[in-house]
């Protein structure tokens, strides 16, 4: 496999990991915070008790773990790939979340959102057609 093809494959794998870890981390973070409930008072005692309760949630720790894996994948892919490639390509996460919501959670997805999802797919496909790295390391 040529260096260029190998770099492209590595980029796709890392982007897939980034999007999977990031999207599932966000979903679990939201779920975890909803389980903990709303913060009603910013008084120091109440806020400390609230965050102590939040950090006792297994779901929240799982979310934090996934978001850390997202950050690691992001840092690794940025060690060779252009930011102007990685950033728009990672928008595919919106598509993943919309599809997960529709198929697994039975959420209603309005037409404008499906239009947005389709446009993101087209945009990511166009960006994906360019070379991931246009610049040598400094």
């Amino acid at each position: 496999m040529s260096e260029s093809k190998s770099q492209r494959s590595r980029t796709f794998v890392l982007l897939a990991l980034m999007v999977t870890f990031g999207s599932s981390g966000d979903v679990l973070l939201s779920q975890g915070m909803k389980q903990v409930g709303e913060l009603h008072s910013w008084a120091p005692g109440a806020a400390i008790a609230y965050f102590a309760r939040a950090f006792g949630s297994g779901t929240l720790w799982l979310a934090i773990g996934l978001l850390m894996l997202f950050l690691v994948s992001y840092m690794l892919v940025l060690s060779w790939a252009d930011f102007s490639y990685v950033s728009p390509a990672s928008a595919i996460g919106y598509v993943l979340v919309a599809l997960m919501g529709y198929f697994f959670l039975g959420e209603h997805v309005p037409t404008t959102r499906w239009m947005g999802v389709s446009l993101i797919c087209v945009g990511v496909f166009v960006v994906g057609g360019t070379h991931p790295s246009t610049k040598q390391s400094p």
Partner: protein
Amino acid sequence: MTARTALFISIVVVAGQLGDLSLSRAMKTVGEIKRFTPLNVLRFLGRGFRVKWLWIGISLMAVAFFSLLALLSWANVSLVVPATAASYAVGALGAQFLLGEQVNRERWIGVIIVCIGVALVCI
């Protein structure tokens, strides 16, 4: 949209993207990782955390995050989140002019389509 809302949306977008661009610069300074063994990845991340651009990036991301929290305390989420879709275009501009990436016409078209798509998803 009030001037204060517009100002804070600009801070969220610009600080967030400058943060990501700084992170990108830091990782390019460390150099491309070739071997993905756990030890090598840990060493690589350790080298990354010794680069000042990484800490500048994290600080700017924190500014963007707290500005977003402040913004959401008075502005509607249905306005704020679609407006921050402009981040993709601002990021591509920054990558071209600050990091020297060659953002060709094809990539620009993709970025603009993604911006519109993300705005539609978030409306």
